[in-house]
């Protein structure tokens, strides 16, 4: 492994794109526990630490809960911190995720979307990350390896600005283990984009403070209010971070990304890698003269409700493709989009599709089927299972 290639093109997997992103962000403390399909992320980072490419402390731990706890400690001293996990590992971190957010620590983590067991599965779906929706972590769903690397760097920028932790999310195997050519940005440019972390308060024996103490009811709510305000601010900061990123590196992703949406009668909403497949299908359908478009949701928390509303309210029908399921209700993205539109005066009908759970492929024909269904039905449905053998 020759790790110091920056400012060059390189063919790397999604997992290694994460590692390169963390390296370029000059993280100072890494703590992680291995789990398929995340392991390569921290494998490469541990090599970077061992061979001196990255001057960071790599803390080995006995569980994901401890990994996050270690980072909470490290971040409290003002260190830039990183971890990566997946599925059950993320679930085990749950308590500490709340703590990181409540303590306002800008920890950045990669979650490789993997289906929860039982039954055991190592393949992708989004239930692991979406189960952590309300912990106070920002969530960004990535579509390509380049986006993965860039998002790590952007995530630190935003997280440190608003003092909230951030999770970038990528699909197991489809992205994590698939190699693509990407540009590894030049370190000096990254340094220009991402200044060192300077926390407002930190653990310091020379300036001792007590952190996380008991907050009685007369102050607790204000602190929660401030967390929500920080998330609201983060919407602006993500836009700003993306804008400045594009000025330096020539790439931008947006919080959401409409594709051939302008005159679309049906808009398909996606997240993660399935977006790439959907682009192809939209192109085909457009070539056939059908007025269909695409809306990719990249930043899921904070939820860019206004942007989503603006993007969807003028279309005739909305089809949401969820690679997740909230049992007893339906797809989680569909719920979010419905709730974003409900207080709008213009509310197109929303069709909620659930597909691709546990890593089942979402092929172009699956996406075609979703569009066809939406086109041929007038009454919206909350939950349409795609491809279930019945």
């Amino acid at each position, binding site marked *: 492994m020759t790790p110091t290639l920056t400012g060059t093109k390189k063919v790397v997997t999604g997992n290694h794109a994460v590692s390169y992103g963390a390296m370029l962000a000059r993280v100072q403390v890494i703590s992680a526990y291995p789990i398929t399909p995340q392991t390569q992320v921290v494998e490469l980072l541990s090599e970077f630490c061992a061979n001196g490419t990255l001057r960071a402390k790599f803390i080995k731990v006995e569980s994901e809960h401890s990994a996050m706890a270690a980072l909470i400690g490290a971040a409290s001293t003002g260190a830039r911190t990183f971890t990566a996990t997946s599925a059950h590992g993320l679930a085990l971190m749950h308590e500490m995720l709340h703590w990181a957010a*409540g303590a306002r620590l800008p920890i950045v983590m990669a979650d490789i979307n993997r289906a929860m067991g039982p039954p055991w599965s190592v393949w992708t779906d989004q239930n692991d990350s979406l189960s952590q929706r309300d912990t106070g972590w920002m969530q960004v769903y990535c579509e390509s390896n380049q986006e993965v690397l860039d998002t790590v760097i952007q995530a630190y920028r935003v997280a440190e600005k608003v003092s909230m932790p951030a999770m970038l999310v990528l699909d197991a195997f489809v992205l994590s283990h698939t190699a693509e050519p990407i540009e590894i940005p030049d370190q000096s440019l990254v340094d220009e984009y991402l200044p060192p972390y300077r926390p407002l*308060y930190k653990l310091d*024996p020379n300036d*001792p403070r007590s952190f996380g*103490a008991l907050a009685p009811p007369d102050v607790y709510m204000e*602190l929660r*209010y401030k967390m929500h305000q*920080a998330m609201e601010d983060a919407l602006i900061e993500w836009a700003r971070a993306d804008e400045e990123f594009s000025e330096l590196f020539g790439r931008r992703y947006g919080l959401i990304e409409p594709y051939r949406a302008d005159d679309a009668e049906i808009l398909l909403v996606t997240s993660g890698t399935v977006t790439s497949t959907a682009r192809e299908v939209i192109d085909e359908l457009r070539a056939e003269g059908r007025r269909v478009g695409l809306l990719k949701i990249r930043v899921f928390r904070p939820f860019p409700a206004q942007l989503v509303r603006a993007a969807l309210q003028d279309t005739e029908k909305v089809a949401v493709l969820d690679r997740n399921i909230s049992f007893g209700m339906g797809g989680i993205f569909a719920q979010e989009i419905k709730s974003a539109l409900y207080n709008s005066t213009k509310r197109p009908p929303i069709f909620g599709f659930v597909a691709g759970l546990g890593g089942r492929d979402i092929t172009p024909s699956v996406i075609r089927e979703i569009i066809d269904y939406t086109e041929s039905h007038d009454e919206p449905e909350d939950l349409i299972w795609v491809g279930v053998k019945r």
Partner: protein
Amino acid sequence: MRKPIVFTSEREMPPMAVSLADMSHNRTGGWRYMRPIYSEKIAPCKNACPVGNDIPRILSLVSEGRYEEAWRLFRQTSPLPGVCGRVCYHPCETRCNRKDFDEALSIASLERFVADACFDLEDKISDRPKRSEKIAIVGSGPAGLTCAYFLAKDGYAVTVFEAASQPGGMLRLGIPSYRLPREVLDREIELIARWGVEFRTNTKIGQDIDIEKLWEQYDALFVATGAHHSRALSIPGEEFALTGLEFLKAVNAGQTVNIGKRTLIIGGGNTAMDCARTALRLGAQPLVVYRRTRAEMPAIAEEIEEAEHEGVQFEFLAAPTAICRRDGKLEVHCVRMQLGEPDRSGRRRPVPIPGSDFRILTDSVLKAVGEEPDLSFLSEHLETSEGIVMERAQGLLERAGIFIGGDAQTGPSTVAQAMRSGRETAYAIMRFLRGERKPKAPQLDEALRVNFSYFVHKPRVPTPQLPVSERTSSFAETKRALSVDQARTEASRCFSCGVCNTCDNCWVFCPDAAIVRTNGSYSVNYDFCKGCGVCAEECPRSVISLVEEEL
């Protein structure tokens, strides 16, 4: 209590729960029922060293390249670092905490390195009290030399009587030069002499000089005559066998000894190993006959390994029953043994197997089945028991001003044990002359708990060795010195168990900021310490103890 900060709006509040005011009014120390105290511990290596060398501090100095200071620290406890660095059985290494992490420190090699690096240095002869008492020491082995060194440093006039022509006792007579080059021994004896110690060689007690006379002429007397009397085999033909010690003494004195092509060595102790390896260097093929197995051999493991390495042959579970002359050679009759019930030493007793006799043809036989002290020079009104004076503190002899130590007291033991005895006797003599009682030495706890999380694995630097091919043709020293780089690398592996090296961990980890750091040392502010014990847990080297608060 200070006035609390009251927030009237969220804008005034910090983003997270963090204290903004001085919290020192909250004296949480009252919650404490366990108290952390800084109490340096004795490192297990130092505790195991019979001489009491301050190993962690010495190794710390070596790792910093401060060899002279390291050497002077050795000389506070030992006048023979060059000797010990070569011949000591290093119980320090056996106890080294690092052995539970990767490998023990190579402490003996480092002691030798320091002695070699400082070969030309001399003690600074300090101002000493002038004392009128004269002390006679009989025997100039490690016990006698060490006793002389400490007494002379304290201002006493010391005369050492030695039967041989040069001082050194067993160090010179018994230990072959491939283990201890004579210039090293000579140099360290010379440095002892610089303190005014007088050596009277060629003076054998009970022959050239009488113990009663010495007792009259001197204010105190230390008998450190060692254990030179070889035990008997008590078998027919024993007279054909040379004693191992006589053989070594002759070779070490430069005399020619003819042992022929094949020599048979009876015994499994250090003398046997020295005989075998010496015989090898004289061009003979040595065969060691031992009545138990390799596991029961009393010799130091390293010596056995070296002997095997160099090509010494072993015949285990065999005991000689007779030695006969046959055709100009010697025929040793042996019987095969098996191990029976454990004896008093805890080792399984060898029992002959009936009808298992066999014979070995050899040119010579060396018997090395142990030595014992010969105290026949003691006059009858000087009480001894079983040839060994009992506890010096309780014995009649101490009150008489005659002290016995080293191998003469214990029977054959190690150089380091003899040195300990020599030093302890020096202090006992001082107390005797001044009419003082033995003070109660404070017992330090051993530093046994090392927080391995703070250390990285690093292999032990092997001691360089002379290749076997170059060994058996000469008496050149088999072990070689570490290089400067090797020594510093190896010394830096030391955990410094029990010794604070101001790593700041306690200060960094204390959740109550109750550790006060001033000028490179720490103290606990008990007004705030809750006694959680994090400092003690995170101290890598066991310096902080957690003790229960007294109510």
